[in-house]
C-alpha cells in the first residue's frame, strides 16, 4: 500500500418520515441503528433535518451522512452487515413504522472520482 489515505466515501440515508414522526425516527435511528453502523466501520458526520424544525403533522426529511474509507470501507460495511439478521430486521420490520420513503446513496467527492475508478 502507498500509505496515501483512500478517498472518503459517503453513505447517505435519505429518509422522509411519516407525518409527525421525524423526531421519533431520529431517536430510533441513533439508538437502534447507529451503534451497529459504527461497529461496521462507519462514521456519522451529519444528521440533517429539513425543514429545520420538527413538524408535528407533516413529514420531515432526514439526511444521515456517514463516511467510510474508500472501496475497502464500503465493502467492509456491506459484508459485515450481510451477516447480521438484526440489520435487515431493522430496515424491513422495525424502521418502516416511522418511514414514508427512503433512499440510500453511496457517493464520493467529484474530485475523487477519477482516482476511485482507476483500478
Amino acid at each position: 500500500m502507498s500509505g496515501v489515505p483512500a478517498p472518503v466515501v459517503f453513505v447517505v440515508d435519505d429518509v422522509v418520515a411519516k407525518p409527525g414522526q421525524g423526531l421519533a425516527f431520529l431517536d430510533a435511528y441513533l439508538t437502534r441503528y447507529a451503534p451497529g453502523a459504527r461497529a461496521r466501520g462507519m462514521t456519522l458526520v451529519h444528521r440533517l433535518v429539513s425543514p429545520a424544525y420538527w413538524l408535528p403533522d407533516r413529514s420531515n426529511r432526514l439526511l444521515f451522512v456517514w463516511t467510510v474509507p474508500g472501496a475497502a470501507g464500503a465493502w467492509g460495511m456491506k459484508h459485515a452487515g450481510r451477516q447480521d439478521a438484526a440489520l435487515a430486521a431493522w430496515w424491513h420490520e422495525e424502521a418502516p413504522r416511522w418511514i414514508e420513503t427512503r433512499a440510500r446513496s453511496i457517493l464520493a467527492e467529484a474530485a475523487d472520482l477519477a482516482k476511485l475508478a482507476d483500478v
Partner: protein
Amino acid sequence: MFSVVRLIQLASKLSSRDRAESAQALATAASQVPGALVTLFEPTCPGVYHGGDFIWRAAFRDAAAAREAEASESWRRVVSTLLADRARVESLERVAFAHGTSGGTSPRRGLYRVALFCANRNPTPERLARFASETRAMPRHVRSIRSWQLSTATEAGGTRPWTHVWEQEYDDLAGLNGPYMLHPCHWSEVDRWFDPEDPDWLVDPFLCHSFCESESPVIHPGP
C-alpha cells in the same frame, strides 16, 4: 447455445484417496457427455463463496441437446449415480440456461468466474430489468473483464431456485479481486441490489461466487 453449470462440493469426510477418485470419475464423465460442444471441468480456486470444489460447465447447441445428453444411457449410468451419491457429493448447485447477453473476447486461458443469484425480493419485471441492465453495463467500466455473459436460468437446483447466471473471464485472479471488486460501479451502484440495507434490495444474500483457472476459452469459444 445452451449451457448447464454445476458447482460440486465433495463430502468433507472423504479420504484424500476417495476424493481424488471421485474427482477423476467426475472429470472423466464430464469429458464424455454426448453432444457437449464445450466443456469446462476444473477445481475451484481458494476464495470461492458457496462455490463448491469443482465447476462443471457444459455447453450444448440448444436445450434439446442438453436434455438429450442427460437422458442418455451413459449419463444415467454414470453421472446421475455419481452426483446423487451423498457419500461423495455433499452439495450440488445446478443451473441450465440459454445463453444471454454477452460481450468481449474470451482469453485463450485465464480465470473463469460464475455467480449464481436468486432474485427473490419483490422481483418485478421493472426491477429485474434495471438490475440486468446495470449488471450488463459493468464490463464497460471494469477493464479486466475479458468476456462476460448474463443469463436467466431456465432450470435450477440446489440451495436456491437460482434465477441469474453471471459469468466472466479474466486474464487472472487479480482481474477479479482488483478492478471488478474495486470499481465504483460495483460497490456504489450495482451492489445495492444485493444489499439488505438498501431499499432496492433484490437478491437473496445466499449466493454462489465461484471461479477456477481455465485452459481454453469458455464463454466465447470461437468457431
